[in-house]
């Protein structure tokens, strides 16, 4: 790709790669904006959910996904954890001059497939090519809108003592996969990223329990960060039990050698939920019946004190504080 081709060349590129990939009539119309009838939205609920996120990842391709999968699934998940039905996405792409068109095509194809799986449509987009060195290969921004059905009130401030804490599956797959791919670390077993849209799983959960209190996809900062946000926003303590945390043996082994705590590793297809205690079993059952929630587990409960704290109960009856990390996991034992 050459920079500043502008005009016709750019139009060709978008036409060729994205419209080709998405192949959807709204986008194909090539207006400057997507037009959505309000009545169509209102059928789904009473509130609009609107979010945006920018995706930069190194490497672009990793076991289990690529930046395209991430860009669609990430934004879909940000909508879905509000209880919203994700409907439309936009997509802005910044390309570094010299990026092979083939790379772009692969990413676009991933986006198409992921959008299809999530049942959302990419309805508007934009592409810019910048000089070599002004960007690292490929950045993608997606924004999304969805509609929240009436009666759903999910919020990080709604956890109450006694509620159950659920995670939807193995922790840390994405973080471990990226780290290993980026640093070219030799690991005997493959760890594929868990990158995927979660709106289907969330639908199943809401069907089992419309009164889900808190819900969040555990992306950067991992489950630890989400739990800390719940604990602080709700003014409660969260107690989790180490032996109940679902963890892939390969991830566990890699974490042990690397000295990483899987609670802080990023996920791109895992969520954390807080539900009323009496609904926990029902929700778990519904999740396990769904392919994206097969390894869902209750990992802890909400307690009253100490407010704002997340406490890990270790195997030997010990306890450890799991706090919010400012940066990376930095050694601190003197």
């Amino acid at each position, binding site marked *: 790709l050459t920079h500043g081709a502008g005009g016709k060349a750019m139009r060709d590129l978008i036409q060729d790669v994205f419209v080709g990939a998405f192949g959807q009539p709204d986008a194909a119309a090539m207006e400057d904006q997507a037009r959505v009838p309000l009545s169509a939205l209102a059928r789904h609920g009473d509130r609009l959910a609107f979010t945006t996120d920018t995706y930069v990842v190194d490497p672009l391709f990793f076991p289990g996904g690529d930046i395209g999968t991430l860009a669609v699934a990430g934004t879909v998940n940000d909508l879905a954890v509000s209880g919203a039905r994700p409907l439309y996405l936009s997509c802005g792409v910044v390309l570094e001059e010299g990026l092979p068109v083939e790379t772009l095509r692969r990413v676009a194809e991933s986006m198409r497939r992921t959008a299809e799986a999530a049942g959302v449509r990419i309805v508007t987009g934009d592409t810019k090519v910048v000089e070599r060195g002004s960007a690292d290969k490929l950045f993608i921004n997606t924004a999304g809108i969805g509609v929240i059905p009436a009666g759903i009130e999910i919020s990080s401030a709604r956890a109450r003592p006694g509620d159950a804490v659920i995670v939807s599956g193995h922790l840390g797959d994405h973080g471990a996969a990226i780290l290993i791919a980026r640093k070219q670390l030799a690991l005997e077993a493959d760890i594929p990223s868990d990158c995927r849209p979660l709106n289907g799983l969330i639908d199943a959960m809401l069907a089992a329990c419309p009164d889900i209190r808190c819900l969040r996809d555990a992306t950067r900062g991992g489950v630890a960060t989400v739990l800390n946000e719940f604990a602080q926003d709700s003014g409660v303590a969260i107690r989790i039990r180490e032996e109940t945390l679902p963890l892939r043996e390969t991830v566990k082994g890699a974490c042990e050698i690397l000295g990483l705590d899987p609670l802080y590793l990023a996920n791109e297809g895992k969520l954390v939920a807080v539900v009323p205690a009496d609904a926990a079993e029902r929700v778990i059952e519904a999740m396990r019946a769904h392919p994206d929630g097969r390894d869902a587990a209750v990992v802890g409960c909400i307690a009253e004190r100490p407010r704002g704290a997340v406490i890990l109960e270790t195997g030997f*009856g*010990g306890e450890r504080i799991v*706090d919010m990390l400012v940066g990376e996991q930095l050694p601190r034992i*003197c």
Partner: protein
Amino acid sequence: MSAVMQPVAAQAERIRVQGLVQGVGFRPTVWRLARREGLRGWVRNDGDGVDLHVQGDAAAIERFARALRDEMPALARIDRVIRRPAVPEDAGDFRIVDSEGGAARTGVVPDAATCTDCRAEIFDPFARRYRYPFTNCTHCGPRLSIVEAIPYDRAHTTMRGFALCDDCRDEYTSPQDRRFHAQPVACHACGPRARLLRTDGAAMAADMLTMLDDVDAACTLLQRGEIVAIKGLGGYQFACDATRADAVARLRDRKRRPRKPFALMARDLDVIRRHCAVSDDEAALLASPAAPVVLLVADGARRVDDGVAPGLRTLGFMLPNTPLHHLMLRRMDRPIVLTSGNLADEPQCIDDAEVGARLGRIADYVLTHDRPIARRVDDSVARIVDGVPRLLRRARGYAPAPLRLPAGFERAPAVLAYGGELKNTFCLLRAGEAIVSHHVGDLDNPRTQEDYRRALADYEQLFEHRAEWLAVDLHPDYRSSRLGREQAAARGLPLATVQHHHAHVAACLADNEVALAAPPVLGIALDGLGYGDDDALWGGEFLLADYRAARRLGTFKPVALIGGDRAMREPWRNTYAHLMAEMGWARFANDYAELELHRFLAAQSRALIDGMLASGTQAPPASSCGRLFDAVAGAAGICRERTQYEGQAAIEFEALADAGTLADADDTLAYPFAVPRLKSGLPYIEPLAMWQALLGDLILGTPVPVISARFHKGLAKVIVAMVRQLCADGAPAGGVRRVALSGGVFQNRVLHEQVAARLRAAGFDVLAHRQVPANDGGLSLGQAVIAAARALSAAERRGE
């Protein structure tokens, strides 16, 4: 003043006494001594200590002043006596007068072990307090562990629920009685009671009821090999017979503490002497009012079970510190294990409501009582190193006694320093003194962290401290640093951020009362890890330092911490990192293929680890002396795979180098190190030659104790060589003759004594810790004095 001096029959003097003179029975002592000498006048507490007026015969006043120093109460510490001539007053008999309108400095003093008088009383069948487990007087008894608020009087202690009986009230109100104003005074008739219970709530077996009393019955249980939880002074403890392998093993198993040494208590010095050599200094330390756990060399005729302190040659012994312990051990001629009452590394339990749920899993019986514990206060730990008692953990018996600050800090602003992450203490500094909190513990534990927050608020109230400055460690993720940052923002106070190793060195300066204006010293701070000025991880540093600033002049070789904090628990990671940094796998595998160490390392996930090293993933370099110890211990097969408690590898490695082995280890065979320079120009301690010599010794099958001795000596030699190089004429610290030793590594007695002796032989003056620990328990003091020094400099620059 002089104008009104008239020749009168009687001389008069106004005497002011400063130091630890409140809440320790000082005024009654003054009263008694003044009356003995036939003096008139009065004594009172005020904001500056004790203020008194005496008049009478000049020789009697002299005798009185001398007696004040010679016969002062056991718990008092006189820093200064200021005597001025005064105008005789129309004074009657000597009397104690009330404090001047609330101005008295709050007298929260440390808890003190039972004094000899009280001890005699509880064993005297004709005394009113025969076998009374809560006997105390102004010279002994609970203080910090029972106080809830100020001023320190009974209504503000956990004794408030016990109304004094007439007999106790008489003692409490009589200046001639040693219980005059002893706030926790009590007796069988009016005070707390001890009870022996089963933790499962079931009734006691009938044969227990035939014992003298419940406390005596607990002794019988111990003799039968049972584990008994005991409500001690500052928290619940677990006790069992230390000579019974079954009991010790059961306690380790139930408490989930596989290897960390247990503290011991014995009835008297004679029992301790059967197990350990006890020097006069050690005996004095054991029997002091603080009654700390003292680390002693275990070379007596009798042995406790090996499970008490596995892999060590020292035992931590203490003497009974309360009447309850004295009475319980009366019939016990063997040592007992006495360890903190909770699971694993949690803080000890102080809440009676938790006994069943938390202690019941470990102990079948509990000897408890109904005097609540106001705050958790652990046992203090001390060791005589280089001939001087040094605290390794400062808590019961020492905290919260203020440390007198050296010259230059008289006008210091009020500073609150938050301390470190592990072995946390915090520190309240104000004009001329620093109050270092009792040992709080490791802040990664939620209960400890809750305690920490509570204790911070609590101390600020008890000492009426209103901080003008806050101080924290430079490490962004220490829980203490975060709390300090939050509170600085919330309270709108300036925050001083202090580099870890500078704080260590400054703590050592303050501990040794080095004046604020004194020239810089060469500080050697050796520990596990601290956050450096350059955002790297430090842990073996040579600093040109005073209270205000520190300049890094030398260091240890930066070597990767494979897996970050994991490297702290698995010494082999450090062995591997060192060998890869020094020689690489190919050479190691080629030259040392026959070593068992080679087979061990070859079996690890080398591909992944080499990738981490090559890419710097989770393998940050650290110039850590503690990790060098781990690397060497791991190579020698000590705790190679994993440690069960902090510093275990280094502690067990040190234990191997006994006095005999050390004396035999030829100095010329001490392992060699070099002192080249890093790319930045900084000189560093390079261990390549040491590794070659050590691996050679492993091939020769040299005994590990000899390896340990050679390593310790070699390390001491190179540390001194580094100091000489840095302090040579024209070098950055040219002319500096004073060296301060700090950091947890200096708790290693062998290294400490080797370094100190060699430095002195080279003409250096050596400062080391005494009153606060060399480990991170001393950090808060260092942070506080650094913040104060900076604030004073800033004020000076502004011309204040």
